[in-house]
């Protein structure tokens, strides 16, 4: 029974952890050099085999050597005199991370695919306060990890006993398919675009032609114009859908929500299991997103914006998403996070001038510019111009109308809810006592019509409501200021 480990002496990670570091190093190098690698593989026949395998094994040896050095120089221990946990690491750039034990809020033990294969775990330490440092030990045996966790938690005031109340698996794969088919088109399109352009660029650089452009062009030309355009569009759309689906499933496989005393734990992932501890106090903004298709299919995405550890900008890592839950499940999750169902309260709408302003900037102005350009240089015939202008007007008009129609603000005693968006309708929910700063804004030409805007800043992002009745806004601001001043709830 080796149950007692002297943590006051510097400890190393487990020896097999070198493999994890090796895998990390390998992954990084592959990520950096993959376009070259692909080209080499395609031109494999014409390569000098000796040079090729020689350089590959050289790189591998180098990575292995560095992994060993990383392992050797990484030590951690508990300084009992200063009550600090100390991590020392770095081969060339030495760094020393010290964390005061009483500041430790949570110790997480995670496992990625590589770590699972090697049989080691990752221990992450979450600290309180804005001066958050990244402290993690990436390869540690399970026994040592649990011992260390106990020791660290034992010192800190916050104890999290193992009493876990498990909610049933909220999300099944079926709803992923729905989400995969109905969201993130733009993101996936961008990903696809970047992927294709880098690949094509690398191919042209090495003058390899695996796709015969002429063949493709002549194949497409054998169909009427409309058909070939539709084929290309259909192909891209299909690719986007597949990329979407695969991404969603890989990322959110086996989604699980648990409530553990005051905090909520989310865990998910197909290859790399991720577990996130959410402290409801740290949550600043909840964002609910749903578009028309998703409404019909009864799927909702809930985003959680936490107080950012970096005061200057909200980090991506502090934004967490729960994709594809049904209406009923979303109510349950909201209740879990807010401990009550957000009430919508009094409705505030923007002035019709917002519609007029948006129509001017996004409809009339572009059309005027196009008219001027065509008048100057006659790019297309006037018949064609009318056709394009009509299509643009209808499209733009629909978007402007819906984004105006969906622009709403609801205020109740405990919640401020803002809704906006033309296709993807976002609903942002904040609690008034989480407001940090209030800004009201009025342009000089808005004075006569008594219009104005308000921006509420929280530690997790801003919410603004513009072109509305300024008297009402000022009244609300006074009310929110009163709430912030009298509330003794902790905003974080």
């Amino acid at each position, binding site marked *: 029974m080796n149950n007692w480990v002297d943590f006051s002496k510097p400890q190393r990670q487990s020896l097999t952890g070198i493999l994890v570091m090796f895998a990390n190093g390998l992954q990084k190098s592959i990520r950096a050099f993959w376009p070259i690698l692909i080209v080499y593989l395609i031109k494999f026949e014409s390569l000098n085999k000796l040079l090729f395998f020689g350089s590959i094994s050289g790189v591998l040896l180098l990575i292995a050597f560095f992994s060993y050095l990383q392992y050797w120089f990484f030590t951690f221990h508990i300084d009992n005199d200063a009550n600090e946990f100390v991590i020392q690491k770095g081969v060339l750039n030495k760094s020393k991370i010290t964390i005061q034990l009483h500041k430790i809020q949570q110790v997480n033990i995670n496992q990625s695919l590589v770590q699972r294969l090697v049989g080691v775990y990752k221990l992450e330490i979450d600290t309180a306060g*804005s001066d958050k440092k990244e402290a993690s030990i990436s390869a540690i045996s399970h026994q040592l990890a649990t011992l260390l966790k106990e020791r660290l938690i034992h010192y800190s005031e916050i104890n999290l006993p193992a009493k876990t109340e498990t909610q049933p698996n909220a999300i099944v794969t079926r709803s992923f398919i729905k989400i995969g088919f109905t969201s993130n088109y733009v993101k996936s399109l961008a990903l696809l675009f970047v992927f294709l352009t880098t690949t094509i660029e690398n191919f042209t650089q090495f003058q390899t032609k695996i796709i015969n452009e002429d063949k493709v062009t002549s194949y497409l030309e054998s169909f009427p114009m409309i058909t070939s355009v539709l084929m290309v569009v259909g192909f891209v759309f299909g690719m986007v859908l597949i990329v979407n689906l695969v991404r969603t499933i890989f990322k959110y496989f086996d989604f699980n929500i648990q409530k553990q005393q005051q905090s909520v734990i989310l865990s998910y992932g197909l290859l790399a299991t991720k577990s996130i501890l959410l402290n409801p106090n740290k949550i600043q903004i909840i964002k609910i997103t749903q578009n028309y298709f998703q409404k019909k299919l009864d799927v909702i995405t809930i985003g959680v914006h936490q*107080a*950012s550890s970096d*005061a*200057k*900008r*909200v980090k991506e890592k502090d934004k967490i998403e729960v994709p594809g839950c049904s209406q009923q499940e979303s109510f349950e999750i909201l209740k879990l996070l807010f401990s009550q169902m957000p009430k919508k309260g009094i409705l505030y709408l923007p002035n019709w001038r917002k519609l007029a302003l948006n129509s001017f900037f996004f409809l009339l102005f572009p059309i005027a510019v196009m008219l001027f350009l065509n008048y100057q240089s006659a790019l297309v015939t006037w018949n064609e111009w009318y056709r394009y202008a009509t299509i643009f007007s209808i499209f733009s008009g629909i978007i402007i109308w819906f984004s105006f129609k969906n622009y709403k603000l609801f205020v109740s*005693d*405990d919640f401020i809810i803002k809704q906006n968006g033309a296709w993807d309708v976002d609903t942002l929910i904040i609690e008034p006592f989480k*407001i*940090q*700063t*209030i*800004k*009201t*804004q*009025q*342009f*000089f030409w808005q004075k006569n019509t008594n219009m104005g805007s308000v921006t509420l*800043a*929280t*530690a997790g992002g*801003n919410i603004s409501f513009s072109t509305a009745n300024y008297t009402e806004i*000022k*009244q*609300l*601001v*006074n*009310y929110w*200021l*009163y*709430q*912030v*001043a*009298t*509330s*003794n*709830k902790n*905003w*974080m």
Partner: protein
Amino acid sequence: MNEFSNNTIDLDTLPKFEELHLNALHSNYVKVLLFNFLLLVLLAIGGFTAIFFIEREVFSTKYWLLIFSAFVLFLVFVVIIAKLSFNKKGYAFRAHDAIYKSGLISETTTIVPFNRVQHVALHQGFIARKLGLASIELFTAGGSSSDLEIPGLLLEEAQKIKNMVSHKINPIAKTEEVEVTENYFPENLTAENNE
């Protein structure tokens, strides 16, 4: 907490921030504003003067006159803008929050409740130091866009405000010595100009 969620609040009886009398900034602050504006103008003037003496024939005499009059007009414009934007600026401290209003084209009022302030800083730029002025910045957790900076305060006044706010944030800690951070460059060249 329950006290106010149970009672219905008459929104009209709440103290109104918009009816507050705002304190004007110190009159010397116009000079700081002017200096910041003029520095940009001076750079441009310097450039054209150099051209005037080195390669006069780049522009004809007519154009030189035009450029000269444009500069004069621009200078007058800058002085008027500085004066107007100074008149628009104002601040107030209430029991629970700090208010700062500014902006010519878009009038912006920023309000920071004291119980959300993370820390307070006192800044003094080069010109401001010569004129005995300082600015106070209240930092919140809402990111840089939600911080509040009040420029053009007398140093003495600024120190008092800093102590007052520090005391409100942390009533137990004794009022510490005020450290003055000095910027040796003219302050907020960009921030002031777009107003």
